[in-house]
């Protein structure tokens, strides 16, 4: 345990980097995932096709491959940028596919009568989706979405291998290889760091779930 206290500031830096990285990835994947879910239930066929392809591509590729394409493929095409943002982009693309499917399951869970009633009172598709369907859908998808978010936080550890500097997992690498410290205590510290993010997120989601639940 001494290892963790001796290098506490390194761990804290890594923790904050991971937190920042995940915050951007979370916002990005929730927005894009929801938009893609809307595409998948839209009455316009090309949008549906686009949404389906998106999910099929990003849900079925290993995250390392998606990150590889972002970090090494984009510069190959002449698009240069910070590895931090390439990492965020990769994680957003990958996670958005899972968010989309979770949200879509929520949309499907809203009774069809809701959509029919919305259209009957003269709301457009966009209006019925954003005012009537989505607010109800989100309530039911809090638990599956929670699992997706927690998986995303853990997946962020992979981004360190694609140039994202100094994330929590990277700290473990530095301590074990540069300073030659024993791996088990170092990685125990890394594990505690991730738990310090994922457990509160889980608790928060549980709270949210109870708060927004609808009694049917």
């Amino acid at each position: 345990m001494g290892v963790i206290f001796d290098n506490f500031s390194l761990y804290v830096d890594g923790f904050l980097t991971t937190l920042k990285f995940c915050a951007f990835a979370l916002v990005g994947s929730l927005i894009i995932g929801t938009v893609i879910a809307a595409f998948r239930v839209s009455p316009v066929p090309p949008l549906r096709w686009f949404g389906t392809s998106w999910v099929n591509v990003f849900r079925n590729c290993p995250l390392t491959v998606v990150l590889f394409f972002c970090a090494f493929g984009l510069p190959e095409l002449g698009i240069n940028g910070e590895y931090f943002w390439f990492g965020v982009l990769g994680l957003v693309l990958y996670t958005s596919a899972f968010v989309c499917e979770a949200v879509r399951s929520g949309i499907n869970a809203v009774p069809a009568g809701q959509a029919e009633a919305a259209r009957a009172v003269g709301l457009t598709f966009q209006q019925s989706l954003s005012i009537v369907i989505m607010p109800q859908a989100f309530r039911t998808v809090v638990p599956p979405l929670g699992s997706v978010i927690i998986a995303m936080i853990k997946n962020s550890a992979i981004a360190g291998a694609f140039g994202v500097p100094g994330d929590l997992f990277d700290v473990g690498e530095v301590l074990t290889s540069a300073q030659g410290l024993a791996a088990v205590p170092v990685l125990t510290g890394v594990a505690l760091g991730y738990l310090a993010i994922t457990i509160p997120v889980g608790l928060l989601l549980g709270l949210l779930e109870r708060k927004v639940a609808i009694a049917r």
Partner: protein
Amino acid sequence: MRLRGLMVGAVTAALVLPLAACGGSDSGNSGSNPPVATSAAFEDGTTMKKLADAGTVKVGTKFDQPLFGLKGLDGKPVGFDVEIAKIIAAKLGISADKIEWTETPSKVREEVIEQGKVDFVVATYTINDARKQRVSFAGPYYEAGQDLMVKKDNSAITGPDSLKAANAKVCSVTGSTPSENIKKYIDPANLVLFDVYSKCADALRTGQVDVVTTDNVILLGLVDASKGEFKLVGKPFTKEPYGIGIKKADTKFCEFIHETLEEAAGNGGYEKAWKDTAGTVAPNTPKLPTLATCA
């Protein structure tokens, strides 16, 4: 499509690299075999006497370090370390084809010397005090050091002190000593870290980073593989003296190796060894460093 390009590249590299090594070995066999001493007479009881009588010598080197010790398809290692070993063997009256090569990766070097599995080790072997506890070193025969690798047309970066002014992004490997050393010279935000150097080379090629830094010996291998796209800045800013590892306290053998190295430096053998191997990438032949005293 990119992936296929990469695959093709990887397969091509896998095919071409050993071929290139072969080429080196051919020229090495024809041109760089140092003249074998014919009348080698040594004192009884010395390592030299034992080896000269046996007519064969067991040498440890690396089999995976381009330009220093790299094993080709013909099974013979080629490189600067290999040439140095040949010079020493020749002085013992042993020709290059009588050398038994053993692969000695960094982790096993002390062990194979202590156990007598090899007679000496020439394997990008940095002399340091911890290692001197277990083995003795002759040399140094070469001084490596951390250097910078940039694109061929980059003239803004002339050494570590120019990195800040150029606001250069620098790439190295996570947790490596060079990555810790370079932190003195740059803003930490400009340091990019990967798990292997090949990713750094790729990032340099695509313009994601401006500089790759690690020991010049590793960089020379990357420059060699880049087909003229990269170059070394050539101002090493750390000192890694490479020695020849021998059995602890074999002072006579150490003194013999020193004489041999000095003779090679005098008669052009040392320069030729460099020119035939690492010199194909780094044309400036290094001077033989000042030899340490044998103890």
